[in-house]
C-alpha cells in the first residue's frame, strides 16, 4: 500500500514536493514506516544528513494529533512527518 507523507522542516531535503508517496507493506504501522524511510535515506548519499530522521521524527495524523509507533497506517492515508523542532 502507499501512504502520503507531508514534509516539514529538514525533511524537505527528501523531495522538492510538499507531499511524497511512500510504498509500505500492507498493515504497516509507524515503526515500519520508520524502517522504510531509513532504507530510502541510506540509498542516497546526498541525504546522509537525514540519517537520524527516521528515529528522531514524530508523526502527526491528518487531524494534527501525534501518532505513535503502533499506529496502523491505512492505504493512501495522509500523515505529516515532524522532525525535531526548534522555533523561537
Amino acid at each position, binding site marked *: 500500500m502507499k501512504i502520503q507523507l507531508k514534509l*516539514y522542516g529538514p525533511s524537505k531535503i527528501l523531495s522538492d514536493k510538499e507531499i511524497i508517496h511512500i510504498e509500505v507493506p500492507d498493515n504497516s504501522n509507524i515503526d515500519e514506516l520508520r524502517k522504510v524511510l531509513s532504507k530510502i535515506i541510506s540509498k542516497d548519499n546526498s541525504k546522509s544528513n537525514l540519517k537520524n530522521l527516521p528515529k*528522531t521524527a514524530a508523526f502527526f495524523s491528518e487531524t494534527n494529533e501525534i501518532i505513535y509507533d503502533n499506529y496502523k497506517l491505512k492505504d493512501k492515508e495522509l500523515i505529516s512527518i*515532524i522532525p525535531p523542532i*526548534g522555533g*523561537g
Partner: protein
Amino acid sequence: MDLHTAIVKSEEKKISLEEAKKFIFSENNGAESIFVGRVRNENSEKKVNAVTYDSHDQATIKSFQLICKDAKNKFDNNARIFLEHAKGYVPVGDISILIAVGSKHRDEAFKICRYIIEEIKHQSPIWKKEHYSQGGEEWLEGHSLRPKKNIK
C-alpha cells in the same frame, strides 16, 4: 478577547511591535513584558544572512493557544497575551517571534513571557534553516517530539 496568536508569513507582513503593545494595553494592568526574538548575524561561528522558518501551521497555532492558556492558569488568568511567529524568509535583524504580555504585576508578566518562549521551543512544530554569508544553508537541529524512551 485577551489572547492573540498567529503565524505571520514574512512575504505578506512584518511582525509589529506597535500592534502588540496596542493589543495588551489595559487600564487594569500595571505591567507589560515584551520578548522580541530577532534573526542574529552569527551562529556557531558562521555568518548568517537570514533564516527561513517553516511551520506546521495548524499544530503550531493549537500549541500556542494551549501554552498561553497554561501560562494564564499558572500565573495570571486576567493577563492579555499577544504571540506571533514568523514563517518564511526572515533577514538578519528582523523579528522572528514576539511575545507581549500585559498583567496586573511585573512578576507575573515576566514569568508568563519566559514560560511561553521556553514552551514554544519544546512544543511548537517550527523549524529554521539558516542561510550563510559564505553561501550554503542548513536546517538546525532541534528537540524531538518523539517520546525519548522510543529513540534507540
